[in-house]
């Protein structure tokens, strides 16, 4: 088990390799379809994403009526491949060093990870309760106009469990598993 602690950097994530089980402590910024499209269209990010991690997640959130404070009640990853057309650009232009999601991403993202120093972390799909438990505070909300699940949520997490499935050295666990299972498939068909 490895640990990745805030502040993050391209150097720190370059140390990580495919298959590493990692506990992340620090900040995460959620961002899914609307945010990626917005950044891709050349709009300025409302928050500096340099050396930050983006989490593909549309959290279920609740606002305390008295204090006005937000809590996250469910926060599992959403399918990442939908951001494939935009992700490489967001890595290049905004300097993010990590992407968390599920299902893996494609070659463009893998290439950008290598070139700019970024990794793809896979969270366990469907583990909405375990992952929400790791969120210690909600520190900010940006682009609220996209709707709450689509907005950028600034979160502080502790020991957030993920697996590196695409590293900054051009390796992808998704490619490996697909290739090896293809070989086996041939022998059983």
């Amino acid at each position: 088990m490895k640990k990745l602690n805030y502040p993050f950097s391209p150097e720190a994530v370059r140390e990580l390799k495919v298959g590493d089980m990692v506990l992340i402590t620090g900040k995460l910024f959620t961002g899914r379809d609307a945010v990626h499209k917005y950044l891709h269209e050349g709009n300025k990010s409302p928050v500096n994403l340099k050396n930050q991690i983006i989490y593909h997640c549309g959290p279920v959130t609740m606002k305390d009526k008295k204090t006005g404070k937000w809590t996250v009640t469910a926060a599992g990853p959403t399918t990442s491949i939908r951001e494939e057309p935009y992700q490489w650009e967001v890595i290049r232009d905004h300097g993010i060093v990590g992407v968390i999601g599920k299902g893996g991403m494609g070659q463009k993202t893998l290439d950008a990870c290598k070139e700019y120093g970024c990794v793809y972390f896979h969270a366990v799909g469907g583990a909405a309760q375990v992952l929400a438990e790791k969120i210690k505070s909600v520190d900010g909300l940006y682009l609220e106009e996209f709707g709450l699940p689509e907005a950028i949520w600034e979160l502080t997490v502790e020991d957030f469990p993920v697996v590196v499935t695409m590293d900054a050295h051009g390796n992808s666990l998704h490619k490996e598993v697909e290739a090896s299972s293809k070989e086996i498939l041939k022998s059983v068909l």
Partner: protein
Amino acid sequence: MAKKVKSTKVKAKSAPKKTVKKIPVKKLDTRKQTIESLLELIRITSTVIPDDVAKVLMKARTQEEQNTTASYAMNIIKDNMDLAKFKSQPLCQDTGTVIFFVYHPPGFFQNEFKELIKKAVVQATQKGYLRQNSVNSLTGENAGTNLGEGHPSIHFYETNKKEVEVKLVLKGGGCENVSAQYSLPDTTLGAGRDLEGVRKVVIDAVYKAQGKGCGPGALGVCVGGDRADSAYAAKKQLLRKLDDKNSIPELAKLENEIVETCNKLGIGPMGFGGKTTLISCKMTHSNRVPASFFVSISYMCWAFRRQGIVMDSKKNTIKKWLY
């Protein structure tokens, strides 16, 4: 509802006869009780994995090698099951397509029951057991109630039993996206119009899904039928308990064979690699016309949410849980 309360009281006063008095009062109580029973069915379905599935998942967890990404994923899955149950909150934030199967005696009022189901769904959404998950396909609008064209999905079956049975499946989007339908023969796979061909396409679907359906997965399969009936029959196989046995020997054999073979593919939980790719395969068949031969595969994620209740025939309370 309020209207009904009034009319019942008026009737009760003006009609002293025992039978006349009794029927409307009972109807009022049971409507409310039915919604409550359905709401409880939705809550348990969304927050607790049924015993038969939990048992297989926990066995799979111990079979993965320690300190691998596969066992890491299975441990998180277990923690998530415990936490969701304890907190009574959805296992996964995608609470899926809400599909009801209602088995009822003759003379049952289907339309009325539909309305009660809808009321329960709206309440379950307000209480957070269901996410606001229903989107108009033309306008993209989300009414926030989980009601809309085709939602919730409700299917009725008449039976000879006295009691009403309601089964519920919450079918996630990620695993629905990797579900598939093949048309035999499939030349690229070398799959002909026989059970061997069926075996090939089902394994191919599991290979193609990789980790994208939040595996380890469970399959419902239908051999034959037209495109629509075949897909529906495949999904209905998800209602079978994982430890039951198919009464058709050929299918029983094929079910086991497919699970065994798919677990050799090494795709593993979440597609991380590992021993458990599939926890079950349940198959049925349906007649076809000579010109077509469809095989439909419904892929269910590890967050296999299905439950059922038998309702008391008089009080409409939950008499028994089915899974």
